[in-house]
């Protein structure tokens, strides 16, 4: 699949801080690409360089094989993490304002329908809820019918319901053959939306692939969870390593049948046994050594 945007040997040096350290990246057309990483990993700087907002110290960014130019501004859609809007304007006026900044645009009615904005069209943008505001910002990012859309932590601060509603919108946008570059702190969001992810740490990509590929690559085993009772001593005697996780003890094993048999034979109570699959959160901690932000 051809890449719509690529970066080669990207470096961004701030005074005393190397934010991006020789990063290479190629994003295929039509996918949702997730850029993940702990705070300070360099993902915002990277995405701003890809957006053309920030200039790299060295390295190149190519859009459809050519350096970023005036055409890029017309063809890219961006939803920043923190965006203020012109005050005292309604949703309708804000959409109309941005529409007039581009040569080629979608019909406003299409954007309104796509982002479910019809109920709030005449509302002052300062009076929108978090979810409504994010829908409007997504609408603004889509107004020029972009091929490539950047969504920078679009659901941060939203309640779970609003977040899931937003995911549905992103899936709808993706179904229109758009390429989406998403940064997020929510691993379940990345898992739900992204076809491919890259995990950054210290200015570099430390792991990249489809979520399933990465999980298979990093975890060849499963996790058994048993209640935290008096089992720990017995398990220690058996030489089985356990990890405390809330009210449960977790046992990692690549030999599920053998381990279960061992537990049964030694009288471990398995009434509330659970088998947990590895998640992107586990992967994130595994490759960066850090927990995701709450």
């Amino acid at each position, binding site marked *: 699949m051809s890449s719509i945007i690529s970066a080669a040997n990207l470096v961004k040096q701030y005074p005393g801080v190397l934010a991006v350290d020789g990063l290479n990246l190629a994003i295929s057309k039509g996918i949702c690409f997730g850029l993940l990483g702990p705070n300070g990993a360099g993902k915002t700087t990277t995405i701003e360089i890809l957006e053309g*907002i920030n200039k790299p110290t060295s390295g190149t960014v190519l859009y459809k094989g050519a350096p970023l130019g005036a055409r890029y501004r017309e063809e*890219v859609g961006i939803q*920043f993490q923190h965006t*203020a809007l012109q*005050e*005292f304007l309604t949703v309708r*006026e804000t959409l109309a304002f941005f529409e007039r900044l*581009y040569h080629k645009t979608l019909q406003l009615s299409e954007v309104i329908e796509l982002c479910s904005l019809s109920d709030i069209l005449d509302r002052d943008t300062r009076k929108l809820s978090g979810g409504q505001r994010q829908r409007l910002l997504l609408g*603004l990012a889509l107004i020029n019918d972009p091929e490539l859309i950047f969504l920078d932590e679009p659901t941060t601060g939203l309640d779970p319901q609003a977040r899931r509603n937003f995911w549905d919108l992103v899936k709808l946008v993706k179904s229109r053959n758009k390429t989406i570059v998403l940064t997020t702190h929510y691993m379940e969001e990345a898992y739900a939306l992204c076809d491919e992810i890259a995990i950054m740490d210290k200015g570099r990509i430390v792991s990249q692939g489809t979520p399933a590929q990465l999980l298979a690559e990093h975890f060849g085993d499963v996790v058994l969870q048993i209640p935290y009772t008096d089992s720990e001593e017995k398990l220690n005697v058996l030489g089985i390593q356990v990890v405390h996780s809330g009210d449960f003890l977790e046992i990692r094993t690549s030999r599920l049948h053998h381990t279960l048999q061992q537990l049964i034979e030694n009288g471990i109570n398995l009434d509330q046994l659970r088998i947990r699959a590895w998640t992107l959160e586990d992967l994130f901690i595994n490759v960066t050594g850090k927990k995701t932000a709450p």
Partner: protein
Amino acid sequence: MRKFLAVLHARNMEFLRDRSALAWNLAMPFLLVFGLAFTFSGGGKDIYKIGIVGGIDKLAAVAPKLQSTQHLAFIPYEDLNKGIDKVKHHQMDMLIDISGAPKYWVNSTSPNGYLLERIIWGTEGNGFERQAVEGAEIRYVDWFLPGILGMNIMFACLFGVGFVIVRYRKNGFLKRLKATPLGAFQFLFAQLVSRLLLVMLVTTIVYTGCNIFIKFNMQGSYWDLLLVNTLGAMSMISIGMLIAARTASEEFAGGILNVMTWPMMLLSGAWFSLEGAKTWVKYAAEIFPLTHMISATRAIMNEGATLSQVMPDVWILAAMSVVILAIGAYVFKWE
């Protein structure tokens, strides 16, 4: 053009719907004009200016008590008619001619002239003959109005544009616009035109409203007045843009704007004439657009000056607008 009009419209809507800011922009100049015109609070200065024709060195001999009175500044004048004009236009509080029999001129509407007349009676008795200022005297409020309007334009332009751009930068709106095909010059020019239209609208409303009650003296052309004030406002907006071209700190921008406004207020002749001030102070005042705007406005309104007579001020204001705006656009950063 489409992008420019989009930004212009959005900014106008923002301003007009911000009722508290709009009310303040309208109310402040009204309050200033009425308050200062009727209470003469501008008379708080403690030095009264007296022009002396006929040799200032002779004053001690002709009027020793007056000469030794504190808080009076004596300014030598060669040309009697020029001195009378200064009294007429409130640029001088009193003119004394001691080349022959002592005579003095005061503007009968000047509160300072009124006080000085009583001082001269008290110090020198009836030895000085009162002379009438020929032609229509300029009322204090007529002298004062151009200064008030000029200051209102200055505040509205400097803070209205400077703070708005800094706020846009600080809250990320400029970053969002940077991600669109909108150019920096289109954005800045729209801000300039928006503020210019609104300031001129507000100024016209204030002028018209005050004129209903006070009936200002207007000797010259309203078109000339409009041109001078438009150029004056443009130059102030350009300064506001230059100050806001890079900073994202409202505190810093506020400090710089205050550093700009205070010298302009004090030295532009808005509150009091610089007659008798040191030469370098007068030269320093010339670098401020407010000085030229007020000077040309007073000339048009009070003396009936034509456009050609105020052309030096017009050229200076136009040049300041273009040069400062160009520098502001050049150094402008979205973030």
